[in-house]
C-alpha cells in the first residue's frame, strides 16, 4: 500500500507574489544588493585613497557620473529602508524585561531611531558638513 503525502508546490522564483507580506520581505532582501555593491565602492575608494591625492581626486570625479549618482541615490533609499526595518524589528528580536513587565516595543525601536539620528548627525559633524 502506498501513501501519497501532500506536497504543496511552491514556485521557487515567483512565490513572493502570493502575499503582500512576502513582497515586503523581498523588498527588504533586495536592499542587500545595493549594500553589497556600495561596499565594493567603499573598497575601491580605499584603494584610491591609498594611491595618492591624484587617484583620490579621480575617484571623487568618477562619483559624479550620472550612473554613479543614480546608483547612490537608490542606495541611499535602500539603506534607509534597511535601517528602518532593522530598527522596527528590534522590539521583536530583543524584548526587554524590567521586573515583571516588558518594556513597550515602540520604546525599544524608538531608542534605536534616536541613536541612529544622533550617530548620523555626529558623523556629519565629524565629516565637516555643518
Amino acid at each position, binding site marked *: 500500500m502506498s501513501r501519497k503525502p501532500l506536497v504543496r508546490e511552491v514556485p521557487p522564483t515567483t512565490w513572493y507574489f502570493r502575499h503582500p507580506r512576502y513582497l515586503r520581505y*523581498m523588498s527588504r*532582501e533586495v536592499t542587500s544588493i545595493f549594500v*553589497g555593491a556600495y*561596499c565594493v565602492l567603499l573598497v575601491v575608494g580605499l584603494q584610491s585613497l591609498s594611491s595618492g591625492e591624484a587617484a*583620490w581626486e579621480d575617484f571623487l570625479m568618477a562619483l559624479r557620473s550620472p550612473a554613479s549618482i543614480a546608483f547612490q541615490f537608490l542606495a541611499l533609499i535602500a539603506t534607509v529602508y534597511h535601517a528602518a526595518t532593522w530598527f522596527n524589528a528590534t522590539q521583536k528580536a530583543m524584548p526587554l524585561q524590567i521586573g515583571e513587565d516588558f518594556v513597550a516595543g515602540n520604546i525599544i525601536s524608538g531608542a534605536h531611531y534616536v541613536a541612529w539620528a544622533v550617530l548620523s548627525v555626529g*558623523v556629519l559633524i565629524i*565629516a565637516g*558638513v555643518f
Partner: protein
Amino acid sequence: MAKSHKPVVWFPFAAGGTVIAFFIPVIVLLTLMAALGHVPAGLGYDKLHAFAANGLGKLIIFGVVALSLWSSAHRLRCTFYDFGARADTLVATVLYVGAIVGSLFSAVYLLRI
C-alpha cells in the same frame, strides 16, 4: 555536544547588520553629496588621509568595511536563494570568499596609508 561553526558566521553577520543600519546611510549621504558637487570637508584628501593614517581611524574604517562586506555577503546569499537560485554552496562560496578578499584588500590599502 556537536560543535557548530555557525557562530563564526553569525557574529560578524549580526555586528555587520548593526553597523550597516547605523552608519551606511549617512556614509552614502556623504558620498552622494560629493557626487553632486558639494564635497564635504571630511572627504577632502588631506582630512580623510589624516583620518586613515591614524591607528584608530584605520580600525574604524576597517571595521565598517569588513563587517558590512561580510553581512551583505550573507544577506546576498539568502537573497539568491529566495529568488530561486538553488546552487547554495556555489553562491555561498563565491560571496564569502569575495567578502574575505575585499576585507584583506581593504586592510592592505589601509596599511599603505
